């Protein structure tokens, strides 16, 4: 079956993954939601 074409190459995906994970790590790096059963 013929492969469908997409807008992005494997290398571009690798780059995007790296950027996305860095961004989300920074977002979450300083937040501690405290008190009163912080998780549930």
């Amino acid at each position, binding site marked *: *079956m013929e*492969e*469908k*074409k*997409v*807008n*992005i*190459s*494997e290398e571009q*995906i690798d780059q*995007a*993954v790296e*950027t*996305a*994970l860095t*961004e*989300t790590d920074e*977002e*979450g*790096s*300083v*937040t*501690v*939601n*405290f*008190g*009163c*059963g*912080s*998780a*549930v």
Partner: protein
Amino acid sequence: MKRSRYVLQAPSFDGASTIFYNLRNGVGFKVKSDLATRFDELAKLGPMERVLEKYKFVHSENEAQDVQDEYLAQKQHGQPLHLVIMPHQNCNFRCVYCYEKFDKNKMDAQVENAVVRFVEQRLQTGQYRVFSVSWFGGEPLLATDVIERLSIQFRELCAKYNVTYTATLTSNGYGLDEQTIDMLLANDVKSFQITIDGTQECHDHQRLLKGGQPTYERIVKNLGMLSTKSAPFITIVRMNVGADNLHFVEQHIEEMKQLFGHDSRFQMFFKNIGHWGGEHDDEVDICSENISVKLTSLTLDHEMNALPIAQQLKQGSTCYAASPHSFVFGVDGMVYKCTVALYDERNHVGQLQEDGTLELVDERMRLWTDAGVADRGCKECFFSPVCHGDSCPLVRLEEGRRPCPDTKKKVREVLTLMDRQGHPFIEIK
């Protein structure tokens, strides 16, 4: 090609794409629905078969064990040194739902010095890259002098041992005047969690001074001052929601938007009020349904900033109490693991000694740090990369049940909401 149990699927916010998100590593693809709406269709697109293999979207026999091994390795050697420090254990407020007894006061100089010695001993081992402090109480701003002295010494130690220092503050906001704000920002406090329980009337009903006086106006004024500062920080504007104030949430969001909508550093966050063990528990009406996801969505409807919901799906979103590198220090040097169960003996895990060493009761420590990974059901769960069974060791201890986070039950809704908040999914079109 079989999909990993950690890969979830949800519609994008506009409904035109499908999100495929891997809880194991936070990699997510947003794929136009005319290209693929199923995992097997996604695998046939361009380079995606190789990409999905590379980023562990594909099932493997050992994935549950691998996820647990990665967590255990990180728990042992990769976590920051984290201290919750209570510089004052009394409070100028008497909130209706509070669980604290306020039977202790300010940290004394001897304990302060012991905390500094403890930190130096830990940092000089070379095992930490990050040292994180959470100022908590009681009300921590009743002891700003303690915070300032300790912060200065922590920053010096971190510079000496080449460790990154960061701090957060949980406060009622009443004492957050300009001088205090400047001191905190100068001492690397990067995140403030301040509670406003709804409109002025609702807030002043729930969060009163010890003498019964209202507090809303002064807190809002202080936050206005904080907003004038150019430093990089986040202010989590927390609302504790119960049956009494639920109907005023929309008005509250609008008011917060008028005051802080221009400042993306101010982000709203909603938490269900619980029966947390305070003396007025009988009078507190709680909501049966968890409202966090719904009210975050409502906040976005009103074009106000909300705390990124993606944080609730972050890998290793475990409670600090489950980390062997996290300790809560009371004003008298008592060492706890949890900031809620302050009067539960199982949480009195040790005592800070004058020379900075910790005398720990290992058996009690293990109650908090080891129970999650021992749970085979949690190990096999699709949500394990997020919480590893460690989302709330207190629930496990008190109720003998798995503390599944509410996010687990609403995970598809959360993914769609992440898209609405502009989460950087990789677009395939």
